[in-house]
């Protein structure tokens, strides 16, 4: 659950205080956070009857939960003086402005929408993000480890590759130390710690933090923050897909099984199936 951090918004502190880094004497100029607009995670997604996609009409859309965590992390770094500015960016249709406004209300300083009407593959998204990186020169890019719609888990790694910079994926802890980061990563075998030079790309796992709730006055303030709109076609990135999606189908359903009354019946059923020796 997200928590209300309350207290003074870092916005009231002014840029000079925000830019000071407590403890390390050095602070980043800019963190870029990439947000994706996705079907809200509480929605039970259904495949369209004609198999061309999933039903999105009238469905609640939100910031991808992992990206919300990415933004929260960037804001916390800025709030403790580790960065001067947090820029949120998204690539998608005009409707994505809603999610950018939410990001601004959470506390981002400004937003960039790269407008594009149709679905793009992660490689194309990474190519567009690289163009923004070349324009904005962030010290750190934080993105969610995966989007909960296509579940690809690719974009951060691809951006890091195209940018020829470090990647620290599946982060559950991020420490900034001058021009280096130390990242604890959730891996199958446990927790892996790596160190990387900035600039770098970090992708977030669920346990990195709990994003804050947006407060009403912040929503009002967010309306006045800058939101720049660029056309995807104007950035000079390759947008052609490599893959062709031929359709969507509902997953095979597991049949609802039987209820048993007590442990005896459970043990009996397990024995019948050959478990328990």
């Amino acid at each position, binding site marked *: 659950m997200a928590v209300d951090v309350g207290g003074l918004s870092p916005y009231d502190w002014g840029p000079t205080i925000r830019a000071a880094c407590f403890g390390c004497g050095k602070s980043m100029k800019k963190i870029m956070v990439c947000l994706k607009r996705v079907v809200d995670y509480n929605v039970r997604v259904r495949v369209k009857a004609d198999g061309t996609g999933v039903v999105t009409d009238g469905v609640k859309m939100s910031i991808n939960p992992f990206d919300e965590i990415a933004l929260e992390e960037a804001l916390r770094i800025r709030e403790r003086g580790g960065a001067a500015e947090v820029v949120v960016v998204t690539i998608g249709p005009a409707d994505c402005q809603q999610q950018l406004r939410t990001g601004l209300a959470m506390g981002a300083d400004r937003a960039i929408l790269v407008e594009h009407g149709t679905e793009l593959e992660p490689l194309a998204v990474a190519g567009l993000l690289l163009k923004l990186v070349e324009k904005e020169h962030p010290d750190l890019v934080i993105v969610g480890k995966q989007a909960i719609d296509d579940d690809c888990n690719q974009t951060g*790694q691809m951006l890091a590759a195209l940018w020829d910079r470090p990647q620290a994926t599946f982060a559950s802890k991020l420490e900034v130390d001058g021009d280096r980061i130390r990242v604890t990563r959730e891996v199958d075998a446990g927790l892996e710690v790596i160190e990387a030079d900035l600039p770098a790309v970090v992708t977030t796992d669920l346990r990195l933090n709990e994003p804050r709730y947006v407060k009403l006055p912040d929503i009002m303030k967010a309306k006045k923050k800058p939101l720049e709109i660029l056309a995807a076609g104007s950035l000079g990135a390759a947008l052609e897909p490599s893959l062709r999606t031929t359709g969507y189908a509902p997953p095979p359903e597991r049949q609802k099984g039987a209820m048993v009354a007590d442990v005896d019946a459970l043990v009996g059923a397990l024995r019948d199936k050959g478990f328990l020796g």
Partner: protein
Amino acid sequence: MTAKILIIAEHAGGRLNQSTARCLACASQISPGAGADVLVAGSQCGAVAAEAAALAGVAEVLVIDRAENSAPVAAVLAPQIAALATAYDYVLGPSTTFGKDLMPRVAALLRVGQVSDLMSVEGPRRFTRPVYAGNAIQSVEVPEGTRVIATVRTASFRPVAAGAAAPIRGVQVGAALPTHTRFIELRSGGGGERPDLQTARLVISGGRGVGSEANFRILYQLAGKMGAAVGASRAAVDAGFVPNDMQVGQTGKIIAPELYMAFGISGAIQHLTGIKDAGLIVAVNKDPEAPIFQIADIGLVGDLFQVIPELEKRIG
């Protein structure tokens, strides 16, 4: 012309991960009978190479043995793999945290898209993969002439058998390796002597209903008696009952044990997507309305603190 397939081996501590044998099973469906090459990139990884060479369906094991490869750092491995990949039509890695970290970096270096979590082979260039936490299955096609880069959803493929003896060849690649990313340490989770969650035949799993780290002991005891691995829901991990490597689900491990027993787990879609391929799902929950009963093969409404000790007694 037969398709040339390269599989990126996953290994740690001098042992080959079973995900490699599962990738080989996928490769054998893409190009039946042709055999695939396996790349072992590591440092002093001769034993791993020998393990890989024994797997069925391996044409040749390629070894890049150098100190820089002593830990699996994606930024270091990717340029080496990309350099070799130009000789292949397909490059496959496992959809484990190792492969998920590495393969997109390889794909981007090759300027080609990636098929993530490949779950079935419908034709040499047609595959399916889960999207929306498994609520939909997407069919994708990689056009002729485009190199196929994919991560293989390991739970969807049975590992190939061992017992063969493919040739092993050391290779050198000229790629420049970055030093900007450095491995520091691996802190392994709480598994200890228990079977590995990703490969275990039997899995016992606990959720928020277990209530505490101390209470998880009753699950470990039952698991010990049954020879089972122990998993958990995200809620149990978030609450600090168990380490992160025990999480099962959309953002944790996707597993396919023969038996999965869920105690005090409600059955959120993100959890269920991790166990859909289990043979038999047993759910014990005190709430008769818990959604997990909708997909469980055997359900028991009850208090896990009564059920588990009783079960243990009956098995004992």
